[in-house]
């Protein structure tokens, strides 16, 4: 009932949710029930790949929420994704226990290697899933809150804000590269064994992670749609279009920005946390400014300010990336650049814009 109410008047969202439901049922069936010899069989590798796309789609939604509706072009959203990922990675590291190469029951391998004698304080508690789950939302959310509070209060907007978000993720990347930070430095966190007691390499766990990603995407979409549909969403668009005017009407522009930005960072954190167990590694490369720029391109290609456009963009661009980096690895970055230039020049409303125009004409 509630879901129907949120999706009311949202054709794109209805289509997207239906597709998601189909995929959520079809993928486990094609992987687990269809025999491997059949042409309809889906390999576990593909399941994981699709699961990864879904977490990217959730990340794209979080960017679209702040860029498409609030007009904040964040070039540092990868940082929130990576922080969520690290929080999950820390839990997975603690789950390894004494099965590591060095067999230390308390310390992860990289700490033994770096001559740590005891667990750093910020690793405490990550052996418990509930604690890690809270941190996945809390750490990115808190960073976004503090960062946003400082930036929005000083009325930093436009290009300047984009640049400092970029600087934020770059600074975090440099910090996480350092061994002294206690997050595995260059190599990051890897060699994960299991999650909540389930073997990460088992097909069934992979399917469960895929379904969890799909559910998170559905939840993230509905929550974002609910915000966008509310009066707060209309205030956000008003801020995007005429910030000063909104302020004179009496809205606390900084508070609105801060609330939406923080929510968006928490969503990105959840996406990161689901991404890490599927790809099996998290390292400082995830903080790379390039990643954050790439995900802005997904949203631009899909069509910003629609939410479902961001989902479409993330899945399509990443499918293309998988294909290109396999078939013509050296072409990919050029293709990505061309995609961004072309979509800005000819598709200001993205792929979704073409479809909506078609259906409006007919």
């Amino acid at each position, binding site marked *: 009932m509630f879901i129907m109410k949120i999706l009311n008047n949202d054709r794109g969202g209805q289509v997207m949710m239906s597709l998601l439901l189909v995929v959520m049922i079809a993928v486990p069936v094609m992987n687990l029930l269809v025999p491997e010899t059949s042409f309809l069989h889906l390999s576990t590798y593909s399941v994981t790949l699709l699961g990864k796309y879904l977490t990217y789609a959730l990340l794209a939604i979080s960017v679209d929420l702040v860029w498409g509706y609030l007009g904040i072009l964040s070039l540092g959203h990868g940082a929130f994704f990576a922080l969520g990922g690290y929080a999950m990675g820390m839990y997975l590291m603690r789950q390894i226990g004494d099965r590591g190469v060095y067999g230390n029951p308390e310390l992860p391998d990289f700490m033994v290697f770096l001559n740590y004698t005891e667990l750093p304080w910020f690793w405490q508690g990550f052996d418990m899933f509930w604690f890690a789950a809270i941190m996945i939302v809390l750490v990115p959310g808190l960073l976004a809150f503090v960062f946003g509070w400082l930036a929005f209060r000083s009325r930093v907007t436009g290009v300047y804000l984009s640049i400092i978000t970029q600087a934020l993720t770059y600074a975090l990347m440099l910090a996480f590269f350092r061994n002294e930070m206690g997050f595995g430095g260059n190599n990051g966190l890897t060699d994960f064994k299991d999650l909540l007691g389930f073997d990460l390499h088992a097909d069934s766990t992979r399917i469960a992670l895929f379904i969890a990603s799909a559910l998170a995407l559905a939840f993230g979409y509905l929550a974002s749609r609910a*915000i966008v549909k509310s009066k707060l969403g209309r205030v956000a668009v*008003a801020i995007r*279009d005429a910030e000063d*005017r909104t302020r*004179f*009407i009496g809205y*606390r522009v900084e508070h609105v920005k801060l609330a939406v930005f923080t929510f968006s960072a928490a969503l990105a954190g959840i996406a990161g946390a689901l991404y890490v167990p599927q790809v099996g590694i998290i390292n400082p490369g995830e903080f790379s400014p390039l990643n954050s720029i790439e995900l802005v391109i997904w949203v631009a290609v899909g069509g910003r300010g629609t939410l479902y456009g961001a989902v479409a963009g993330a899945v399509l661009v990443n499918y293309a990336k998988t294909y290109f980096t396999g078939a013509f690895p050296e072409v990919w970055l050029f293709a990505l650049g061309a995609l961004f230039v072309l979509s800005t020049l000819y598709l200001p409303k993205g792929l979704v814009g073409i479809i909506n125009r078609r259906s409006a004409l007919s």
Partner: protein
Amino acid sequence: MMVSALHSMVDRTRVYDFMIPKITDELDLSHGTILYLEGISVSFDGFKAINDLNLYIDAGELRCIIGPNGAGKTTMMDVITGKTQPDVGSCWFGQRMNLLRMSEAEIAEAGIGRKFQKPTVFENHSVFENLELAMACNKKVFPTLFARLSGEQRDHIDEVVETIGLSEQLKTEAGYLSHGQKQWLEIGMLLMQKPKLLLVDEPVAGMTHQEMDRTAELLKTLAGNQSVIVVEHDMDFVRSLESPVTVLHQGSVLAEGSMESVQNDQRVIDVYLGGD
């Protein structure tokens, strides 16, 4: 140095900032004056945009402010709405609200609405949504997230739409409205805030004559319930408002009175109307 510092400390007439009350909930109009500007000066990089400006507006009054470019009209509006802090001076809303210690949002909430020179409506929102956004209500983040329109609020929107004559365009995106219609929509948005004092900056710029007449009509009906300050260049329009006029020149008041008396003032003729 020391002695003068001591002197200023024991100066009995000095009112310390912390002694000045910041805000009270109710607008106090017991003396019949809604806005006091006293001794206001604003300078930008040495240039005095406003120089010892004194201005009083009565409750329910319609007042026109005219003056050549650079006379400080817009800066004065900026001071009243909290966008610019003056170097010296005081600015009170009613008897008890000190505007200089309030933020833009607080000032708007207290009942001062401003219409900008360039019509700025939310182009991607419909006329209805524009009015809904402007409506006086709790504008904090969470109440806004869960806001639902009450019947009373709907009635208020309908009423304002009627006043500004945009009933036909209720569902139209504001970006598609004509220039004049945008100006009215903006006045409508001001009315949704139920302001006590309206600041209207060049309301008829780019309007046709019919539109101008309708706007004059609209502003005259608003005065009485609200105080209205109109800043305008168009002399015919100011004349048609039949209201007291204040002439600003180089950041301070040059003359004040009816349009006729102001027009016959030699100083005014010299700086402004002489060229008309």
